[in-house]
């Protein structure tokens, strides 16, 4: 079954999974947008501009980091190959453009993030599945019975762990009651995702280390989790004061 899935969505077709996840996530987020005080049109617009900035920003960031090369081969800027892409630059561009759009349209930060949360949650499921299809973000070797044969070894199915964790988080969010304060919904999602990553990253191979032995991704996830708790507490205090 895994082999059939990996053949069906072998790279570069694995990116279809991200497109499907983005579409599904947006559709589901639309259904709940008004619950968070955001119209469907605003949600669609902010997502559209964010995705557009993600695509263009990812390409531009890659080009800027390799300027001498693109001076020699300028046509490469418009190449259709998706490998000319910097995901960190893409995410930064998407956040900046979405923030600018939100500010221009007078959208409040927390309700907007709450409305986008289901989109992020489904996108994470798509990312897990695309990792599984491409065989990237793979796990350490294991002799556990649920290990999968990948890259000539039996490994922790970290891609399946992250997909299942994302699905579980989505389920929790979908059935969660209206949050008491704008922002709690988004922060709960971020805390749950950070917690899941903190756990799963321990089984990933090839992570960068800091302080000679600590997994950098786990440390980042821990810091994100701590920040979420702090932000939740600050929001709850504001609510109490306002009340």
């Amino acid at each position: 079954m895994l082999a059939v899935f990996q053949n069906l969505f072998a790279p570069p077709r694995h990116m279809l999974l991200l497109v499907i996840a983005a579409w599904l996530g947006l559709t589901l987020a639309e259904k709940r947008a008004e619950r968070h005080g955001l119209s469907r049109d605003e949600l669609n617009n902010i997502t559209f501009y964010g995705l557009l900035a993600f695509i263009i920003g990812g390409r531009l960031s890659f080009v800027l980091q390799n300027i001498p090369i693109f001076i020699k081969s300028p046509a490469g800027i418009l190449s259709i190959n998706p490998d000319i892409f910097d995901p960190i630059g893409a995410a930064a561009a998407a956040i900046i453009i979405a923030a600018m759009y939100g500010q221009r349209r007078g959208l409040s930060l927390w309700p907007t993030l709450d409305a986008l949360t289901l989109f992020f949650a489904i996108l994470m499921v798509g990312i897990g599945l695309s990792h599984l299809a491409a065989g990237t973000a793979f796990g350490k070797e294991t002799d556990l019975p649920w290990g999968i044969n990948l890259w000539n070894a039996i490994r922790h199915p970290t891609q399946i762990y992250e997909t299942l964790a994302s699905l579980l988080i989505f389920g929790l969010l979908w059935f969660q009651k209206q949050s008491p304060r704008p922002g709690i919904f988004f922060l709960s999602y971020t805390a749950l995702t950070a917690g899941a990553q903190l756990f799963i990253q321990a089984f990933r191979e090839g992570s960068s280390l800091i302080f000679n032995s600590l997994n950098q991704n786990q440390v980042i996830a821990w810091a994100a989790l701590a920040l979420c708790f702090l932000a939740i507490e600050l929001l709850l205090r504001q609510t109490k004061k306002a009340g």
Partner: protein
Amino acid sequence: MTLSQRIILYVLILTAGASWIFISSDPAGTSASGKTSAPQAGFTAPDFTLKTPEGEEYTLSELKGNAVLVNLWATWCPPCRAEMPAIQKMYDEYKDQGFVVLGVNMTYQDDPFAIGPFVSEYGLTFPILLDETSEVGAAYQVRSLPSSYFINRLGIITEVVIGGPMSEALLRTRIEEALK
């Protein structure tokens, strides 16, 4: 839940998280580099020995010390055709710095009589190897063509590009990384 209950919960979760980071820290097991051979970035490139149509033999592991591009292609594959001029151009430009291209034709799923005219049409001067028994196709777990593997001077795969065509700019970024 009261404030003090919440704070206790946060502290417990963060302490458990920090403990997990320390318990699961494993400096020896975080890098795939050089441990196993597999067609994925960070692994040693799977070794192979193949012949050119003229019968000259090439073994990948004997090219250690050079940066190598293993490009898997077929004559019937349009993106393979489209990227060949860029590969040839980059080969001409970087070969003096220790860059080698091995153009591995998937002969077991190609027309062997089409290979010669293809090489002539594009004026390819780098070694064209024939994978007649799917030895390389299987070792590199090929599911799409073209598939390109950039291998550094130590024999470790630095980048995998599945699909194409690769532009000159993309080739340059990957080659310069492999040459480091």
